[in-house]
């Protein structure tokens, strides 16, 4: 218990030091505001953005597309992962393409999507879906390949149909990997939306970043980055809580 309090105390002290350094170091070292704005500059800019730039709308838009892209991308990734996991043939046939797409930098597709779909919400949604898709797919597929054969045999000996084996043995077996994939995907979703917004369109925090940098308004860029981090953090935390509930049957690591 005392160690837990010590950790908390140390964390708070460190936070205070970082914030103080942010506030006072730039001025002390003579770094101009358009390079590194201080904490108070950023807070003032935040208030201005709220009042003048419609920050709430941008924030909500980014949040919405992050969640939407995350849900669609991970659903597609999971479904394809399970389908390929059940068919060794198609897995072998498709794996080179999957590998190629997985290695290709997904954000580089953003300009292409804009050429195809125009300056609307579609490109950023697609980039997000694409970037979220792979970690989920790969995790699920990997888990499907390593399901305990003896468990499957047991289910077969108990007369379960192919679908029964899937829903009662394979799917639940892959849950830990699925959840791990979703956690990785949640952090990537924010990247997908940000890149989509930076490259095209006039809404969202990603847009505010490119807009702010065009105006040499570093405080605006800082604020937008912090808010993007907040969105990613909230999504990640939500997943961690869901995971704790779903995987309640796994022994907890103490210590």
């Amino acid at each position: 218990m005392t160690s837990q309090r010590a950790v908390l105390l140390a964390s708070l002290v460190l936070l205070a030091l970082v914030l103080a350094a942010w506030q006072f170091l730039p001025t002390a070292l003579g770094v101009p505001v358009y390079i590194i704005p201080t904490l108070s500059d950023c807070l003032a800019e935040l208030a201005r953005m709220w009042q003048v730039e419609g920050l709430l709308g941008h924030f909500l838009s980014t949040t919405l597309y992050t969640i939407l892209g995350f849900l669609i991308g991970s659903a597609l990734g999971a479904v394809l992962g399970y389908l390929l996991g059940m068919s060794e043939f198609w897995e072998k046939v498709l794996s080179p393409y999957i590998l190629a797409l997985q290695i290709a930098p997904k954000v580089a597709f953003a300009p292409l999507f804009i050429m195809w779909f125009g300056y609307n919400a579609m490109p950023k949604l697609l980039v997000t879906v694409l970037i979220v898709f792979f970690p989920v797919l790969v995790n699920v597929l990997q888990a499907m390949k390593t399901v305990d054969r003896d468990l499957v045999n047991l289910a077969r000996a108990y007369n379960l149909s192919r679908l029964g084996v899937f829903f009662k043995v394979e799917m639940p077996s892959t849950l830990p990997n699925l959840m791990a994939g979703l956690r990785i995907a949640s952090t990537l979703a924010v990247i997908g939306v940000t890149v989509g917004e930076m490259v095209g369109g006039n809404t969202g925090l990603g847009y505010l970043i490119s807009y702010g940098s065009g105006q040499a308004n570093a405080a605006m860029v800082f604020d937008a980055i912090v808010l993007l981090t907040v969105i990613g953090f909230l999504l990640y935390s939500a997943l961690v809580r869901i995971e704790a509930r779903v995987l309640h049957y796994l022994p907890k690591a103490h210590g």
Partner: protein
Amino acid sequence: MALEFRSVTKQFGTGDGGALTAVSDISFRVDEGEFVSVVGPSGCGKSTLLSMTAGLYQPTSGEVLVSNEPVTGSNAHVGFMLQKDLLLPWRSILQNIEFGLESRGVSKADRRDRALKELAHCHLEGFENHYPYQLSGGMRQRAALARTLAIDPQIILLDEPFSALDAQTKLLLQNSFARTIAESGKTTLLITHDLAEAVLMSDRIIVLSERPGSVVAEIRVDLPHREEPLKRRIMPEVGDYAAQLFKHLKLEEKAA
């Protein structure tokens, strides 16, 4: 129900197109209510016999018969248990025991009743809502036995169910299994590499050779207390039987 192997041979294709013979021309019979053990060196195809009885795959030649009917697929009369308890970690113990009944058209209420009955039978009262990770290895293996018995199989196949347990738990569990099985009067085939275990638990012991496994000896264990291995364990004759097995397995030659 009786179980019979009639000239059973099983070959597996190896990756490079060759064939590996796991067991070769095996014939023996397990009568109704009898407890038979199969011992043999590792890799002699003991588990192959079990998988064929469970209907997971077919013999290359010969037949496996359950009450004189050839086994062609998964068989409702056969229940099997492995060294791994194979409990589903996401299910409570009670739900795990119900698992085998779910695809057999047993109503929900019936499943619960039968599972609770087997739970008590295997001395797991009070643990129905626990999850597998919360139980010790011995308890998990008892839960696996409860799951096996819940489907009311006529034949029970045990594939080294005690080999992952510590020595004490093993003795206690052998005793509790032996009693439960004797009470239910089920035909049982135990695959094991533990010679003492075979002597303590069986009516008869089949000794297999190295791969390809074939029957080299069949030993009848004429000792009382099959339902209580702990009692049998202190009988002096046990050592003689173990020595016989030793000889058939040519362990001394190998040690030299």
